């Protein structure tokens, strides 16, 4: 615990983050290679969906990450609000672009999966709709941040927005769920049951490996981005000067 607070200061976190980036980047690349190999060569063809189901190995990790990152982001924002630790809000803003990217990828791969499976690029299904709204929340977060000139103010404002958003995410999620089940109009649903029963053990493993690969990828990218943000906001402080001069000479 004591250690944790030590690393809550940007100066001591910066070098640590540097090491972690390398670590996670390597882990992520290794897992990606294994995961992709398994996705295409080891996992068997699905008896119902044919080869098309292989989209799952990217779609599901992307969808999971998109939701998970938002929660983590909001936690960092909350920590920043409560303890006024500068690092926390930086972490929040470092995570947002990656989260938005995974949200978009989940939508994109889902749409590409939907066309062959359902015959439509898009239906107004509960899950699809709430994913779309999640994308809006991410974009709102980033738009607000980039619209404010002073980085400190930007961090505080967007942190507040992330908090407000996270309270709303469950409300949105359940409202959409409910909205869609009340109207029985569209006959197409994510065929969860169909896929799951046909999931062999090897498919589950592949999925897990791909998920961890994405997870590590996120950590590596976010940490690397937070390093840049630290440099930007602390450029006046002595440790940054010393470090950069050390790097030059």
């Amino acid at each position, binding site marked *: 615990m004591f250690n944790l607070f030590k690393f809550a200061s940007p100066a001591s976190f910066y070098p640590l983050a540097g090491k972690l980036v390398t670590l996670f980047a390597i882990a992520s690349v290794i897992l990606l290679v294994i995961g992709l190999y398994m996705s295409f060569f080891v996992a068997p*063809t699905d008896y119902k969906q*044919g*080869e*098309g189901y*292989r*989209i799952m190995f*990217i*779609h599901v990790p*992307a969808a999971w990450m998109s939701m998970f990152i938002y929660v983590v982001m909001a936690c960092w924002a909350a920590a920043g609000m409560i303890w006024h630790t500068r690092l926390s809000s930086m972490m929040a803003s470092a995570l947002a*672009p*990656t989260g938005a*990217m995974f949200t*978009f*990828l989940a939508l*994109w*791969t889902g749409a*590409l*999966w939907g*066309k*062959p499976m359902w015959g439509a690029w898009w239906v107004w299904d509960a899950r699809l709709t709430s994913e779309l709204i999640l994308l809006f929340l991410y974009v709102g977060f980033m738009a607000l941040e980039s619209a404010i000139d002073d980085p400190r103010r930007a961090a505080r404002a967007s942190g507040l927005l992330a908090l407000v958003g996270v309270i709303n995410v469950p409300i949105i999620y359940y409202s959409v769920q409910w909205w869609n089940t009340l109207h029985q109009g569209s006959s197409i649903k994510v065929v969860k049951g169909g896929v799951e029963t046909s999931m062999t053990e090897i498919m589950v493993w592949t999925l897990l490996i791909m998920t961890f690969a994405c997870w590590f*990828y996120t950590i590596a*990218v976010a940490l*690397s*981005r937070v*390093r*840049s943000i630290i*440099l*930007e906001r602390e*450029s006046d402080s002595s440790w*940054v*000067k010393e470090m*950069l*001069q050390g*790097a*030059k000479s």
Partner: protein
Amino acid sequence: MSEWLAMGGHGFYIWGSFGVSALFMIVEVILVMRRRRSLVQRLGRMIRMKAEVSE
């Protein structure tokens, strides 16, 4: 090989998914690295300029 690429008729969808995903992730990594590099350069220049002024 081309049969494998066709993915039983779903090639467009599968490669569309994986391709775009790979593209986005690679581009993101490049953007992050570029941002860092230009930042270090800019700050370095700034610090050097300040040092010269104070000398």
